[in-house]
């Protein structure tokens, strides 16, 4: 070497050796470094299905919450003169057995389904994350007891539990949110606990101990930021599950009490007319449930891919 005292260094402008099996990292571009969030966002918007899901979801929210501002219907007074009208002028989707306009009712019912779905998912995710984080962080006996409780509740089918609870308390939207949220936290609890257990033994968390850092430092700086992605992805799927569960309860006649309603309850009322071919009472709410749940699942899949962006870049 001409200058033996100086360290030979890698060039940062060069590529690492390409690994045939995986996508090769792109070296270090000279431009602005992208944040983890930006990278994830890029992956997300490249996923066409996820974008479709997102658009559908936005449209559904607009339909349910903005729609009634432009399409005024009476969803309170029973009108026995206009029951079970087929779609036609004045009632684009007909009317139901109590004379409510079906299109307007879909909007009102959707408000309930979407509100409960999102709010319950948020509650479930918060409760589950805290529960799982405590179990995973303390470990030992605390962990064993807390996880046996999760196992036990998981072994009771959630629909049975819900039905039982709604026979005790009269269901309204806030009650439904609360009840669904408090029964759906098990899966996030398991996820967070499992994730924090694996993260705890990661070398970069061990490195904190070598630096003299506390456990809380590891939790705040390493475990939480790494768990948060998984939690958000799971929360998305929780929304889908909650929308379905509320529909099941509605269908079983134990959903929100009339005159309020949700899509499941509408479908339940419609089934009474299955043999009279009142299709407008059955298909619109059913298809809306499917479309919204599929959309939420697509968004969830897209989010999962973008959270795993660092794995793809390996």
């Amino acid at each position: 070497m001409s200058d033996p005292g100086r360290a030979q260094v890698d060039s940062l402008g060069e590529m690492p050796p390409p690994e045939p099996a995986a996508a090769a990292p792109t070296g270090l571009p000279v431009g602005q470094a992208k944040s983890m969030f930006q990278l994830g966002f890029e992956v997300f918007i490249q996923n066409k299905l996820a974008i479709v899901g997102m658009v559908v979801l936005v449209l559904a929210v607009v339909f349910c919450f903005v729609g009634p501002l432009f399409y005024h219907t009476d969803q309170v007074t029973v009108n026995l003169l206009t029951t079970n009208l087929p779609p036609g002028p004045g009632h684009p989707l007909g009317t139901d057995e109590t004379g409510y306009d079906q299109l307007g009712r879909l909007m009102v019912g959707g408000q309930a389904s979407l509100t409960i779905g999102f709010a319950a998912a948020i509650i479930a995710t918060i409760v589950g994350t805290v529960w799982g984080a405590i179990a995973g962080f303390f470990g030992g006996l605390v962990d064993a007891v807390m996880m046996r409780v999760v196992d036990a509740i998981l072994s009771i089918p959630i629909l049975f539990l819900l039905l039982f609870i709604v026979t005790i308390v009269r269901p309204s939207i806030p009650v439904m949110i609360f009840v669904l949220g408090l029964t759906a936290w098990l899966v996030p609890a398991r996820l967070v606990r499992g994730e924090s257990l694996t993260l705890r033994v990661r070398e970069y968390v061990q490195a904190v101990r070598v630096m003299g850092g506390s456990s809380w430092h590891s939790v705040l700086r390493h475990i939480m930021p790494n768990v948060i992605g998984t939690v958000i992805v799971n929360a998305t799927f929780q929304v889908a599950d909650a929308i379905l569960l509320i529909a099941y309860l509605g269908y079983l006649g134990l959903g929100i009490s009339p005159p309020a309603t949700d899509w499941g309850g509408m479908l339940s009322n419609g089934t009474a007319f299955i043999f009279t071919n009142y299709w407008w009472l059955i298909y619109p709410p059913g298809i809306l449930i499917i479309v919204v749940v599929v959309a939420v699942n697509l968004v969830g899949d897209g989010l999962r891919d973008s959270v795993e962006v660092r794995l793809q870049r390996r």
Partner: protein
Amino acid sequence: MIGYILRRLAQSILVVLVVTVIVFILLHQLPGGAARAILGPRATALQVAQFNTANGYDQPLLIQYFRQLGEWFTGNFGFSIKLNQSVSSLLAQRLPKTIVLSLLSLVLTVVVAVPLGIYQAVRRNRTFDYVATGLSFIFYAAPTFFIGIIMIEVFSQNLGWFPPEAPQSNGVGPIFEQFDAMVLPVVTLALLSIAGFSRYMRSSVLDNIDQDYVRTAQAKGASPQRVLYHHVLRNALIPIITLLGLSLPALFAGALVTESIFNFPGMGLLFWQAAQSSDYPVELGVVIITAFATVAGNLLADVSLAIIDPRVKL
């Protein structure tokens, strides 16, 4: 192996115990407590007080719990308020029917979903795969009752192939005598799990196709068929066992909805009717039995996994 089974068994018993604690807590959340639940809303305050003293409900909670636990384990789940029959005799009547329905649909699920998932994995990213994935997304998002309604409308009302109602008679035997009436309930219940299982099977096969041992098998001169059936499938099918165990709660919930659609007199219908009429003893009995069945199913799945998978750490 024996040690592993014993350990797993001990864990399961613990979970069942936690379930009983939860149900006990639920029992005490009932309006008016257990006395109201059992004596009914029309009982006088004196009757309630007498009942409480006679049954020890005025004693400390812990003693009450252990008394209750003893009752449950001797098969005494109390007396149905509405049906005027002991809960255990109701369960003995209804449980076998639900088991038959669930098992039939589980068999159908495996028979359809496993080959479907494999075929999708082999022909991945071709038209068939896309169509099947799309359908599974939709069925995964579709509420069971909506599928059931469409089934009835199409196959019963329009085509007239199958009756819209499940066999009504008591006992398990007649189910097989009127098997055409079972087709729609079984298929309805299976569709949701087929959607989930086939997606899982597809990704399980795909995970294995990238493994090093597949390359070894190819290097030995094995044909693509042999690689798939002899090497990949043995590995890909193993996680399905765990999935079978884990899918039990969803299956029972699905059975509840299916039974209510097709008026199939199983445990689910019993529970639904009990929920509508606030028949608490029946509800609690069903919850305990389903939880017990779920725990037992999971135990069975884990033990079979230990027998089948040589790698399981015992």
